[in-house]
């Protein structure tokens, strides 16, 4: 009995404490100060034992290093829309003026035309209506004009960035992560776009409004104006207290989001393994732990930054109360204030804190947009691939004789990469480059196609130095079949035609037939119209090679550059590839970076490279007789990295 009573009491106590718990729960979160300290850089994540995936930390609001330079740079994009921007400014001035005038007129009407019943009310009402219409129209116009300008600018910026990517030296892309470049092209530019749409206008109109309000208020009643100003120090103190806390919290939140994104990216691309190993629950645990961090930082960031509008509202009401109260006393004790003035003042005081609030908000957005712009400009400022000399002429026709004449190459101030390379190739011959990784095989090819320029010496095609031709025309006489076939998204037809954009359908079919690709393409449901997807289940690696060969065939180049694939391709397909390559090389000067002996034995000339120097030149038979790397290779004493 007693027992029961006690449990009942316990129950009701639990009931109360449950209620209490309900109310205080949101305040019971781990305090921000405690986790800000230990979390300096890396918080330990649970699950999977994977270290905190670095991920990309997105859009951190960071102060840019050269803000004025970046701003001037943005201006250089905007400058061509000068007229329109001036129009926007005019509209801002008009809209702001009208916004200020409206309440004034209404106060005036109440004072003089209703309380005092003066004549001409209709006229005053129409005038006020006109003011509001002008305000509405100019507000709309300023927005849409600004949007037009900013979208044009963003369009230009995107196009510039895209074009820049295709003018940068290839080496640039080996240094950079594609994810990072993509994030500049999408996130950063989006950031610029959205803040240009609104922030610029906001900043201008807020400043103007602020000035306008102060002027009007002063002219109405200096004393009441001073009264309104008393809330400003309070506001600054409050804002400072809040932003001191939130800026750290927001950074913390961004970092957590970055970690989560990195984790998600990795687990999405490893989905196959996760499924096959049945590790779903484990990755979910890992995700939860990161997600919890976002929640923790996010909760405090949001709760504290949520004080801002409350503070503004509170201060607004406070100044409202002060104005009405003190204003009322003043109407009684002095004659300097009328009821109309109180109305106007109350309204202006409400409008007074808003632009200040907006300015504070926009400042952050602007800073992050400028930081984004800087990241974009960084890319635009990268040194370009060497551009054609002004007197360069197009290379019109090529027979195919190639000569390297004492070619040396080193990067700026760097170690020599190629030393004294000299050899001659007759049109239609096949040359195989053999040597360990880093010996300079790829560099020789890059010199021939002028991705690099020799430091000294000359490369001649048909007896003419290639330095005198434009790069694009030079490359148009070459075709490349690379290890990675680099097909792009689109139909098979489009991919083959990429070799020569004006090729007819018939020519595409013919090229595919020669490349042994036609039969497998025809077996696909959509044939030549089959869409190739990046990383999709589409077609096999070997089949991609065949398409790449067809693409080279249709280009019909005089010079062919081939980087033999090392990946394991099944024997049947490999036979097909070899056959297709034979057809492709026929009658063309071919340079092959070779990995397979049977390819090399067919070459007219084998060039053995060691540490940037040509150590042996000759045919398979000749070199097999000589002492040297080649014989060791053939005998299997030395192996090369694939």
């Amino acid at each position, binding site marked *: 009995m007693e027992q029961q009573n006690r449990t009942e009491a316990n129950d009701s106590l639990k009931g109360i404490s449950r209620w209490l718990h309900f109310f205080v729960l949101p305040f019971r979160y781990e305090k921000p100060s405690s986790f800000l300290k230990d979390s300096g850089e890396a918080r330990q994540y649970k699950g999977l034992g994977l270290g905190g995936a*670095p991920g990309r930390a997105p859009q951190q609001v960071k102060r840019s290093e050269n803000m004025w330079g970046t701003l001037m740079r943005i201006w250089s994009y905007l400058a061509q829309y000068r007229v329109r921007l001036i129009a926007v400014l005019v509209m801002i001035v008009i809209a702001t003026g009208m916004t200020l005038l409206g309440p004034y007129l209404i106060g005036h009407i109440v004072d003089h035309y209703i309380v005092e019943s003066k004549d001409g009310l209709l006229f005053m009402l129409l005038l006020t209506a006109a003011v509001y*219409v002008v305000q509405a129209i100019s507000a709309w116009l300023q927005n849409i004009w600004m949007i037009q300008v900013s979208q044009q600018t963003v369009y230009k910026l995107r196009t510039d960035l895209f074009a820049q990517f*295709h003018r940068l030296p290839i080496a640039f892309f080996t240094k950079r992560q594609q994810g990072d470049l993509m994030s500049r092209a999408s996130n950063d530019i989006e950031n610029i776009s959205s803040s240009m749409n609104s922030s610029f206008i906001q900043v201008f109109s807020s400043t103007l409004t602020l000035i306008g309000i102060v002027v009007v208020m002063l002219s109405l009643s200096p004393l009441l104006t001073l009264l309104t100003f008393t809330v400003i120090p309070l506001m600054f103190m409050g804002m400072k207290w809040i932003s001191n806390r939130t800026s750290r919290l927001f950074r913390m939140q961004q970092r957590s989001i970055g970690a989560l*994104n990195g984790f998600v990216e990795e687990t*999405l691309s490893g989905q196959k393994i996760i499924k096959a190993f049945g590790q779903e629950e484990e990755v979910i645990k890992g995700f939860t732990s990161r997600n919890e961090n976002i929640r923790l930082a*996010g909760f405090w960031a949001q709760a504290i930054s*949520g004080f801002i509008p409350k503070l503004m509202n509170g201060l607004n009401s406070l100044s409202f109360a002060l104005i009405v109260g003190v204003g009322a006393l003043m109407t009684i004790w002095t004659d300097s204030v009328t009821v109309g003035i109180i109305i106007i003042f109350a309204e202006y005081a409400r409008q007074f804190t808003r632009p200040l609030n907006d300015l504070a908000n926009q400042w952050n957005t602007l800073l992050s947009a400028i930081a984004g712009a800087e990241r974009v400009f960084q890319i635009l400022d990268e040194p370009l691939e060497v551009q054609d000399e002004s007197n360069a002429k197009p290379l019109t026709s090529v027979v195919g004789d190639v000569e390297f004449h004492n070619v040396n190459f080193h990067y700026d101030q760097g170690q020599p990469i190629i030393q004294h390379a000299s050899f001659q190739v007759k049109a239609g011959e096949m040359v195989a480059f053999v040597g360990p990784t880093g010996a300079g095989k790829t560099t020789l090819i890059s010199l021939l196609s002028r991705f690099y320029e020799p430091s000294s010496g000359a490369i001649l095609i048909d007896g003419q130095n290639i330095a005198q031709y434009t790069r694009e025309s030079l490359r148009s006489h070459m075709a490349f079949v690379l290890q990675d076939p680099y097909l792009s998204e689109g139909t098979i037809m489009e991919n083959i035609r990429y070799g020569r954009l004006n090729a007819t359908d018939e020519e595409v079919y013919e090229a595919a037939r020669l490349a042994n690709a036609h039969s497998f393409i025809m077996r696909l449901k959509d044939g030549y119209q089959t869409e190739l997807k990046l990383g999709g289940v589409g077609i096999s690696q070997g089949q991609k090679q065949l398409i790449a060969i067809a693409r080279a065939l249709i280009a019909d180049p005089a010079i062919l550059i081939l980087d033999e694939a090392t990946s394991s391709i099944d024997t049947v397909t490999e036979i097909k590839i070899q056959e297709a390559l034979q057809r492709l090389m026929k009658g063309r000067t071919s340079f092959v970076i070779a990995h397979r002996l049977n390819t090399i034995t067919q070459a007219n000339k084998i060039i053995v490279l060691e540490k940037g120097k040509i150590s042996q030149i000759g045919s398979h038979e000749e070199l097999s007789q000589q002492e040297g790397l080649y014989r060791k290779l053939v005998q299997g004493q030395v192996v090369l990295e694939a």
Partner: protein
Amino acid sequence: MRTFTEYLFRYRGYVILAIILMLVELAVEVIQPLLMSKIIDEGIVAGNVDSILLWGGLLVGTTIFAFAIGIVSSFYSSYVSQNFGFDLRQGIYESVQRMSYNAFGKFQEASLLTRISNDVNQVQNAVFMGMRILLRAPLLVITSLIMALAINAKLALYLVIAFPFLSFFLGWLMVRNNKLFRAVQQKLDQVNKVMQQSLMSVRLIRVFGRMSHENKQFQQQNEQLRAHTVTTMIFAELANPVVIILINGCILLMLWAARHQLQMGSPITVGEIVAVVNYAMRITGALSMISWIVTALARASASMQRIDEVFHVKDHEQTDAPSAQKPLHLKGDISFSGVCFTYPESNMKTLTDVSFKVKPGQLLAMMGATGSGKSSILQLVTRMYHSDAGVITIDGKNIDDYDLHQLRINIGYVPQEIMLFTGTVADNIRWGKLDASLEEVIEAAKLAQIHETIMELPQGYDTLIGQKGVNLSGGQKQRLSIARALVRKPSILLLDDCTSALDVETENKLLDAINKLSCTVLLVTQKMSTTTRADSVLIVDDGKVIKQGTHEQLLQLSTLYRKIYQSQRGKEATEWSNKTEQKLMTP
């Protein structure tokens, strides 16, 4: 939208609490003009200082009270929104993990990532905003209207005129904006896709000299995005001007009426007029907030629709809680009979009538052209995909009847493409069996012939690999993936052409080591050196098994096999083909 309400419902208590607090705040705000009219009527007009002080003091007091309430409600609403966002993120990620592999394939990875991060953020912010402003603005409008009506119904009636028009207009705008924003978002995806693709094939574009062609294509997409964005924004910006004109028009009408009523001798006080005007101005402010909210909501609901698409994938895998069943040890007796398989979304038959049997502990090698269906056979064993016809059994039981988790715990799978995760070497191996001791990890590494290489790394098993860490060669990564599969001590080991970068010697050692384990091995290979060791060889071509037998039998029976054998013998005569694939460890 059901998902949305379902998730929000979990926090209904706090949502209600936050809304109540907001109402209190609102009440205070709404009372203020009333207090003002008291000050004017009882104070100024009557010349009563005490009354001014009384009502003025009340005004200040309520302000401070409202501020305190606001701070408290900030906690509740961010509690709701952060937990809601947490749950939603968790929900999407879990449903992505629970999706069948096939359903997963239908989403682009990048788009899933944006849904999990960006779209959830959008919705979460909308919820937060919702509790604080969304209801506040309409409530402010309604209560102000009611107060105005209470003070002077005749005057306030003029304000009511505008509302049918406004609500119709704003509703229409919201529906349109939602559509427009979705279109813009899609265009943006398109532009980013073109950019990404072109970044991926930057070398190809360069060597073919197709820069201007690419630029032109990009410009086209980019221009479309610009045009879409501009039209959408111009449209979205319409809301505010319309609100300004409508409401202020009503105020002016009301003033006109006020004058009339005064002249007719109606009992209207100046204080009343002033208060009603003040309420009307508050309504204007709140309404322009609403027009902004309409835009934000259109965005958030577009995001929610994208999230819902993920939730609505019904194609889930059967995943019971792993602890529900006790571990089951399979023997590894695999049989395929008459299995046919077509990849979803594809019309080409990948496998046709595939039948074979493997006894426990045997090594079955599969050979055939790329795309002939070997990898698909392995994936069917893991139940990543389901066969359309035929039966696959393990230990005599249809694999569909196994608990998925129990089945997979018995399988060690090494895919063709290498997938390692950011983390240490040990972490990556342990990934196969999370509770593996360091000894077990080392044992697996030894079996996979990678132990010595690991010991040469700067921090041994604690060396970081991945984006920030050491770069391993292809062969090393392959062996690491094999170690990850071996640490599970699987009954069934599936090796999908994952020894391509190993030299003959290492591969032999690896196969010797695997041979000593008691597990059934299905292995895809292109190398004769491997097939000679197999208990049985399957020749797959165009989705069909053309021959099955031992190496010797096939040399007799299959001309294709003989042809491949001879072509590889030819190469191996000089030991070239395989030797080139061996990694040169010295720089």
